[in-house]
């Protein structure tokens, strides 16, 4: 895990655990707000995919775990792929992240402790994601068995399923990194 977050050219010190926890809370709060706004606008019809892109953006900029951006090193334990030619987005100067450094990829490799932490975080996330998938199944069964129990929810059942699946998707993309950022204690200086 990196101790510094490079955000649009500014370097933020994320070594204190408190800051990382604040970041996680802010990200999930923003996602919750976005989900509510999308529901109020279109009932997630046609806009539910924005949650996916928002989660990917959060990973790219803050959380990491995939590609090169964010605090958590790539889960696949590999350095970024490099191309002989710059991608078109770089030519158009539309990049939203720092270009890939040309040095060795050791900065992207997890050591054995980090691999252990990564696997443990996925184990914990797996349980939470499992629960978030089971809930729609439970709701679906209740819709058949006891439809009156769901009558108080001001949403139709399809919207409930879709909303719960959006939550599961968001957790699938972001929860392992969030667990890592949340549980890693204060990071030390290299001296």
């Amino acid at each position, binding site marked *: *895990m990196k101790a510094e977050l490079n955000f649009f050219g500014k370097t933020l010190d994320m070594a204190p655990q408190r800051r990382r926890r604040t970041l996680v809370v802010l990200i999930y709060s923003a996602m919750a707000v976005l989900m509510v706004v999308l529901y109020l606008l279109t009932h997630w019809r046609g806009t539910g995919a924005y949650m996916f892109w928002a989660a990917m953006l959060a990973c790219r900029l803050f959380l990491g775990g995939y590609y090169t951006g964010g605090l958590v090193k790539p889960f696949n334990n590999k350095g970024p792929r490099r191309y002989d030619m710059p991608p078109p987005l770089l030519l158009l100067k539309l990049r939203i992240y720092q270009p890939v450094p040309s040095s060795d990829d050791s900065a992207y490799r997890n*050591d*054995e*402790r*980090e691999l*252990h932490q990564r696997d443990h975080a996925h184990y914990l996330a797996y349980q939470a994601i499992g629960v978030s998938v089971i809930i729609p199944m439970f709701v679906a069964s209740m819709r058949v068995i006891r439809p009156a129990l769901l009558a108080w929810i001001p949403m139709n059942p399809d919207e409930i399923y879709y909303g719960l699946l959006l939550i599961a998707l968001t957790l699938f993309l972001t929860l392992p990194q969030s667990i890592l950022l949340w549980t890693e204690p204060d*990071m*030390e200086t*290299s*001296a």
Partner: protein
Amino acid sequence: MQQNNPPPGESGLYNRIAVLRAERNISRQDLADAVGVNYQTIGFLERGDYGPSLKLAFQIAAYFALPVEAIFSTEPFQPLSQQVYGTAPTSSATNQTRSTPHES
């Protein structure tokens, strides 16, 4: 003896990495680079919060040119003075050592 060997963290392993590093004036980053881990991991190892793999333990032992059992142990380490000279440091000796600079 227990006071000289604080209980290890989650790993259940005692180690002498911090002592050896200080003795040889090696930074965490230097050791981390030599054995191919993050410097944070060295801190976790020193505090006993992480138990190294056999490979990493041997790499650290090779780096310090010592046997593995001289660096890692499941039992508290004896003070080096006791191991070398066969005597445990006494409280009077400790006080004498502390008072030496004032006497001179």
